[in-house]
């Protein structure tokens, strides 16, 4: 039986720890301690997601200055992570990207934090 292909529909950007943000490649070459911290952070994120996610997820390997991109198969996993970010002391960029299965376009929405949860604008 052929396995159903995994489609990562939801995407969030998780910010690096404050000291690692917006560092150029040149600076990172001179600061192995930061690279080490970033690698450990990425590993921790992956380990946590393995525990909390119910469906498939992916930690994007592409280096970005502001943070690490996460992809989720399920919207519920994505929502859980947004809601639980204080628990892990993480900061998510308030932007949610969703792949439209009909048009194949990546649509981006703003995440607005409210006292009762989050809304999408």
């Amino acid at each position: 039986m052929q396995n159903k292909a995994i489609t990562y529909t939801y995407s969030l950007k998780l910010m690096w720890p404050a000291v690692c943000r917006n560092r150029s490649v040149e600076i990172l070459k001179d600061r192995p301690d930061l690279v080490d911290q970033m690698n450990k952070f990425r590993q921790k994120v992956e380990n946590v997601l393995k525990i909390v996610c119910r469906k498939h997820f992916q930690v994007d390997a592409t280096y970005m200055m502001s943070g690490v991109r996460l992809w989720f198969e399920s919207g519920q996993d994505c929502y859980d992570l947004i809601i639980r970010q204080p628990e892990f002391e993480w900061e998510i960029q308030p932007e949610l990207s969703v792949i439209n299965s009909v048009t194949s376009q990546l649509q981006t929405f703003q995440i607005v934090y409210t006292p009762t949860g989050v809304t999408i604008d």
Partner: protein
Amino acid sequence: MKSAYITVIGNLPVKFDIEQARKIGPVIASANANKSIMFDYATCNTETNLQDMLNSASFKDSTLLVPETLFKKYVFFDGVTCLPEFPGLKSYDIDPEKCSPQTLSLMLAVYLRQTIVFLVGYDISNPIELTRLKSIMVANPDTKFMFICNPPRTYQLDDLNNGFCDTFIKFQELIDRAK
């Protein structure tokens, strides 16, 4: 392989084995008018219908397409997708948030660029619905629209070159040939 056929199930209840139609191409449902049938796509523009569809087993594997405002509210629900921006909406005077789900389904069918659109259970008794159907047919002359109904056949679409009407028996014969 992309299919040439697409079936739009309108607002009316349908007594036909839609699984047969799914063998020749995708099927689009209009809101929750036919809850016992499995569909590839379903459109809706009211929150009540969407909640009902999300809780119906038959829509579990369907892609539920809703307008952007409703999508933002249900973005984290798997299977809920934002309707694409249909070209020429303003010229049709159609508001995706207020029009009937069957009009949304029809526009989606045209957007997906299939050559033949079967209209099953499509309600044309309302003059607004009929006018909108005709407008979409005129705007898409390369697409054939086949209105499927029980006898007697309607002559409402005969004034358009790409509008046809046939019975469920003929539809079944066509499916059998195309399979």
